[in-house]
């Protein structure tokens, strides 16, 4: 099985973005089973286990890691959106809190309060976790539509035309952070 990938091939994979790695088009909506199959097919050939005592064994660690990373990115609505924006020339800095709508920020405050109130009640925390999952899913659907409507029209590049997607992606980052906090609380509640 080794030998079908030369050192050159391995280096080429390292330079590919997360979509190219799996031969997928640059779009938000992804055929999940195709991605899963492709991921497994690649790892079966490129995992370091297949390069034992092989001169490219060290390189295969990096390639296999890159495939894992690409797979994780495409499986995370947030990371996938950030990656796709990147492909459209927009680098999102989540560390800078750009103005988000006031009602959204109010909602965040309320969510934090709800977490506080739930205290160590596992049931309530689980409900909250589900609420967050639903919110992220709704945003993900919205982002998907947003990207689909843009197509890959190069005239639509730039921050302005991606304004809503950018805002929704930032909202999603907020929700993810809160979801993580709830996760921690659930663990503590045991």
């Amino acid at each position, binding site marked *: 099985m080794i030998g079908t990938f030369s050192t050159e091939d391995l280096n080429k994979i390292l330079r590919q973005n997360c979509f190219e790695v799996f031969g997928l088009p640059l779009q938000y909506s992804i055929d999940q089973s195709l991605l899963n199959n492709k991921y497994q097919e690649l*790892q079966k050939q490129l995992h370091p286990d297949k390069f034992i005592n092989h001169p490219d064994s060290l390189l295969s660690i990096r390639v296999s890691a890159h495939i*894992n*990373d690409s797979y994780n990115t495409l499986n995370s609505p947030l990371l996938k959106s950030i990656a796709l924006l990147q492909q459209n020339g927009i680098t999102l800095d989540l560390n800078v809190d750009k103005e988000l709508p006031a009602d959204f920020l109010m909602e965040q405050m309320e969510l934090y309060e709800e977490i506080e109130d739930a205290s160590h009640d596992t049931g309530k925390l689980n409900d909250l976790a589900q609420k967050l999952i639903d919110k992220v899913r709704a945003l993900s659907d919205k982002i998907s539509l947003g990207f689909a409507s843009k197509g890959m029209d190069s005239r639509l590049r730039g921050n302005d035309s991606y304004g809503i997607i950018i805002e929704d992606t930032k909202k999603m980052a907020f929700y993810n952070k809160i979801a993580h906090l709830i996760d921690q609380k659930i663990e503590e509640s045991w």
Partner: protein
Amino acid sequence: MALLQIAEPDNSGEPHKRNIAIGIDLGTTNSLVATIKNATPVCLQNVDNEQLIPSVVYYAPDETTLVGTSAHAMRVIDPANTIISVKRFMGRAFSDLDVGITYPYHFAKHDGILEIATNHGYKNPIQISADILRELKNIAIANLGEEPLGAVITVPAYFNDAQRQATKLASQMAGLNVLRLLAEPTAAAIAYGLDTKNEGTFLVYDLGGGTLDVSILQLSNGVFKVLAVSGDTHLGGDDFDQRIFCHILEKAHLTEISDKDTAVLLNLAKFIKESLTDKDTVAVNKVMSNGQIVSLKISRDEFYTMSEQLVQKSIRPIKKVLHDAKLDISAIDEIIMVGGSSRLLNIREQITAIFNKPLLTNIDPDKVVAIGAAIQANVLVGNSKDDYLLLDVTPLSLGIETMGNLVEKIIPRNSTIPITRAQDFTTYKDGQNAMTIHVLQGERELVKDCRSLARFSLKGIPAMTAGAARIRVTFQIDADGLLSVIASEQTTGISNNIEIKPSFGLNDEQVANMLKSSISNAKIDMHNRLLAEAVLDAEALIDATANSLSQNGELLSEDEKNKINQSILELQKQLDADIEITEKTHIIKKLTASLNEATGNFAATLMDLAVKKGLTGRNIYTGTNL
């Protein structure tokens, strides 16, 4: 030598040369070595027909090192030199020693590394583990007739980087080519997964002597993936023994008891626990060293009551691992039971109740990990046609220290490995040309609550204004779960790659020294073994000859008899001689050869006699128990 090698007719008849690979379960309490023979995984036995080798090393006052049952027997006589459960100390610093637990060892600290003072000098856990691994390797060689090409060594899913590094180093010191470090529950799933050819989601419940690991694995399209791991590093069968032990003390009104009696009662507790898996009540009688007789009955219900808390504690990680894997109870297709303590009926009952389905227990829970490791080793050396791949996850989050003694997570736990993550750093002072990065492993937020893996300095950063330099530090965890770090400055054209191998308490020089001393120790070990073999050969020949002389001595002339007796005397004298090892081996071999020569005529005479008696194909030594 010819005496000892009684060749059995070889019916294996392998048509082509195979790569021999072994799987090793390096356990806290027991260790095993397994391989694939005639397409079947088998655990290999030592000369005493044992497969479960106690993970105990005894350093005798002379140069002898004992491993296994013989070493275990020394723990009552010489506890300070009998190292038990050394796995608990692997990758640990002196400061990591649990304060609450008392050990019979004299610990020492050598450059921050934990060491134990023994008859053979200071030994660190890596060297002690290497002694166990060397024993396992020798068992493999004795069984297989050659050095294995490579080995898969299992580690607890929970092991952090330092513990994995230590395990790998110990294996290398034992002269093993490490193909892969494999998580124990993953190995168990391989043992089962391939047998049943299942696609699905499995929960592996591994309760050993002192540790509990719970993992969830997913097998789909030939890819085995660990979704999540959880557990308790201080919970195992020994804790159940302890409960029974305390119960005995209470019932028998024993207060101060000697170490010897403690050992006796702990063994008794273990016996009671094991008996209660197929008996409703166990009655025991034991005489203590002061003459007091301990006599009591324990019912299964009583045992359930006294161990209820432990059972609950052992169930808790199941919840956590399901949560981590984001799975519901109904998503689990099979539950694999691993580890000797998974035989406990109350635990089996509880887990069956949680999942509402039968548990997989048909592979011996003590051997299933070693068997899985052997299967994986066989795949890795290219013997197996099975086209499956194992993907593992990192059990602990990796992070770096940031301002305010906080840890910033860089690689979250349960990430599929191998994995690389880059993090950019910048300078905070004009002209700053060095910075220190502190790498930690763990889930907690404060530096003091995480395990410090490495602290390294980046030097040679080009002088720039504060915040202008961009230093990219790439953390890489390989398929064994081992970390390496590479740093480079991005803004200047010169990508100054600095590779840092984290030291994990051991610096390069120490590692080199340990490897060197293991090689010279291996030499001493080899010389000792050669001598031991020569002595055995000589003794066997002396016995056989003496036996034949007493039975058929009349066939020889006085002169011949004297010559043989003289040879025996000379050889016997050398067996007890106090001279240098290689010299002694040489002399014994020479004298054995001349004794063999002296008996040549005798053998021929006996052969004639045998032929006359109608017995064919037997030789001079038939009369002995060889």
